[in-house]
């Protein structure tokens, strides 16, 4: 069986599955249960400065969206950082780490944006034997109003400055956790790198309102008739997170910067996708909050099976494998021509492809006698919508036209690679030599 042992910026863990800094990692009792269940590491729930801890609301902290069988698709929260005293957290971290030396123990931090605050909190950690720190520049609610969390993460200069302070005042590896609530994720990642960060982790939660109560006319979760925006996470955010991870992984400025992938990871497959896009390990929260810590067992067995099937012996063989294949639109091969093909054996005649194509796309599907649906090759632009709306997996497939064949839609012969940069319609095209 594949070995899932992972070395992430010198932090060792028996598998690449860490619990993200969040409610599941707020207390010793939870973290011990997580390690017993098999998690490779935890990022302890964010600690704040010494002194009176923050307080949380006493009404609902979470909002959600669901699929039809109440499958949780997305969760948002308005919980703040830990509301327990600093010394209790530190004592518990030390206690757990002592008993689980093989697991990764990372401490998430969020303190005011001055060097003294960061030096002080880092000083408190020396004794815990934790493996690293994660700077929480992400949470978009509550703490951001006080100039912390997401408020720092949205200003690359602050990220660089704080990261530099942290590298100066601790010998531990520093992971900078990024907020997705920004236009270009590469900028904060570059700032973290300039500040000396050992790694970035992303994404933190996305600013969101999950739903509006149509009787009370207020956002959910509702606190005494009012609501506020919260941080969105869970399966629904995965595509956004994947793109942000890939952007950092393939950017010239941040290439090679270690990434801890976060965002809706629910199964081994989600984790493998993040890793293929460059994440050295992954962090999980919502899936654990939905199903409990036991889910890590499926992640471990699934990733092992996949790696065995691919002949991979180490997770390092998976990490970044898909990065070279992430490119810009302008480099996509415009001479790659496919046509949708409907397998009549698999078709159940629901007609959704027809409705989608006829109403909203290119009128490229014909509906014949006895509800037989066929693709009109002279109209099909290969948009893939029919594939995506078909309820039967692999019933509709995209078939590539071989070189030399004629595309019936355009009347052109399929030729070799050519992209937009040299296309005749492109006013800024560079002349092909």
């Amino acid at each position, binding site marked *: 069986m594949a070995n899932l042992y992972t070395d992430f910026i010198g932090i060792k863990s028996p598998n690449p599955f860490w619990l993200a800094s969040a409610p599941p990692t707020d207390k010793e009792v939870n973290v011990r249960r997580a390690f017993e269940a098999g998690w490779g590491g935890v990022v302890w729930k964010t600690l704040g400065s010494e002194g009176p801890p923050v307080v949380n609301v006493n009404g609902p902290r979470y909002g959600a969206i669901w699929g039809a069988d109440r499958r949780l698709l997305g969760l948002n929260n308005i919980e703040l950082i830990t509301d327990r005293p600093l010394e209790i957290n530190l004592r518990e971290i030390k206690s757990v780490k002592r008993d689980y030396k093989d697991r990764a123990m990372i401490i998430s931090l969020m303190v005011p944006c001055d060097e003294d605050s960061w030096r002080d909190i880092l000083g408190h950690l020396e004794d815990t034997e934790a493996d690293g720190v994660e700077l929480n520049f992400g949470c978009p609610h509550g703490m951001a109003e006080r100039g912390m969390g997401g408020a720092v993460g949205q200003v690359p200069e602050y990220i660089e400055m704080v990261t530099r302070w942290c590298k100066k005042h601790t010998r531990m590896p520093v992971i900078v956790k990024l907020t997705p609530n920004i236009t270009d994720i590469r900028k904060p990642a570059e700032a973290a790198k300039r500040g000396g960060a050992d790694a970035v982790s992303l994404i933190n939660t996305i600013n969101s309102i999950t739903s509006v109560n149509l009787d009370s006319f207020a956002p959910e979760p509702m606190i005494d008739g009012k609501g506020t925006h919260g941080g969105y996470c869970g399966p629904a955010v995965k595509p956004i997170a994947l793109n942000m991870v890939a952007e950092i992984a393939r950017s010239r400025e941040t290439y090679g910067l270690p990434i801890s992938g976060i965002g809706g990871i629910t199964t081994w497959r989600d984790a493998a996708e993040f890793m293929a896009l460059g994440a050295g390990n992954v962090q999980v929260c919502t899936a654990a909050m939905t199903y409990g810590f036991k889910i890590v067992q499926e992640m471990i067995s699934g990733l092992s099976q996949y790696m065995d099937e691919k002949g991979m012996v180490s997770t390092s063989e998976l990490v970044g494998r898909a990065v070279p294949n992430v490119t810009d639109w302008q480099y996509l091969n415009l001479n790659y021509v496919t046509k949708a093909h409907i397998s009549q054996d698999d078709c159940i005649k629901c*007609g959704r492809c027809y409705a989608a194509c006829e109403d909203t796309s290119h009128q490229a599907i014909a509906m014949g006698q006895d509800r037989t649906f066929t693709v009109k090759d002279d109209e099909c632009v290969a948009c893939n919508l029919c594939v995506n709306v078909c309820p039967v997996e692999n019933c509709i497939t995209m078939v590539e036209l071989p070189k030399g064949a004629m595309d019936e839609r355009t009347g052109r012969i399929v030729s070799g690679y050519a992209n937009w940069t040299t296309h005749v319609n492109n006013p800024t095209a560079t002349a092909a030599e």
Partner: protein
Amino acid sequence: MSNSPLTPGIVPDRLPSAAYARNFADVQPVFDRHEARVAADRCYFCFDAPCMTACPTSIDIPLFIRQISTGTAEAAAKTIFAQNILGGMCARVCPTEQLCEEVCVREVAEGKPVEIGRLQRFATDTLMAKGVHPFTRAAPTGKKVAVIGAGPAGLACAHRLAMKGHEVVIYERRAKPGGLNEYGIATYKTPNDFAQAEVNWLLKIGGISVLTGVELGRDVTLPDLQSEYDAVFLGIGLAGVNALRAAGEDLSGVRNAVDFIAELRQSDKMAVPVGRDVVVIGGGMTAVDAAVQSKLLGANSVTMVYRRGKDKMSASEYEQDHATQSGVRIIYNAAPVRVLGDTAVAGVEFAYTVEGAGGLELSQETFTLNADQVLKAIGQTLGAAPLAKDGSKLVLRQGMIWAGGDCAAGGEDLTVTAVAEGRDAAEAMHLALMA
């Protein structure tokens, strides 16, 4: 319980009293909200959906299921009722496995259709539980229409006519309106007096009066009605019952299944007498309803005998399975030769049948079933009715007289077909009345 399943003869009270309530309870309880959401999520919202085409009343099934899935069961119900005002009863009694659910693409693909019937019941029950009637009458037209028969065809016709602003009087020969919904369907399919509740709800449209205990031909005549009304609708059902044409048919203990079912529906179940050994002859829904309910009343053995094979049986496979799971034995390919007994029935002699050149033939192979009750369910006929030509059903329109439901030619003898015909007749009558 003064008797037991083993007590000889046709007697009531064969079971402990609690068993009756249990046996005649809702055979398939309504979905709760979550079940409905999950079931609705399975619908693919097909283009030009096959289920909709298969429905005799052309209910927009994908639309009403989508309305359920977005938490608006009341809107879903209105979608249903707009096509089929008896959508509540149809949700309970339609052979969906032979109609919408049979052609559901998920039935074709995976053998598990979207549960359209149960979803329809969820929607219609939700709206009806609120006591809301979703339609309003158009301004009065001054036209008067007589509807003969308060069964599904007559009720659907009357409702649609009333909606259009016409004044409707329904004449019903029985004591209660509802027709077969009230007198002809197994109790467990429509418990809690649903048939009457549905009629009362339907009548909220206004403009309809119902006269019960009035029989066409006895109390009123067609010429009377023609002179009094602008148009007449005949939804008189099938009053006649086919005979066995076997010796001994007149022995006591031999009875029409439709009468047995009607008595059951109107009685305290514990008081309904049933045989120890019941033989039901026939292969339709009436036969199944009679056989299953005999068993539920405590008969010790119930056997359904059908003269052709399983695949020819008009009761669906689902109904047949329901019968056998209820403890009914089904014998195929056998026909009665004679009913045995002195004054009361003691048994029935059957011969196995074979498909011969000239149709079904009796073979020399015979067998006898013990029976102290025999229920005949071998089909119904129009009998003597106004405008009826010998042996055939009524044509849909003759002058300002329309016909629909089981008594009329065309379509299968199903509740849902009767509703469609009643509704469509009303639309045609409206055009004729306003011309």
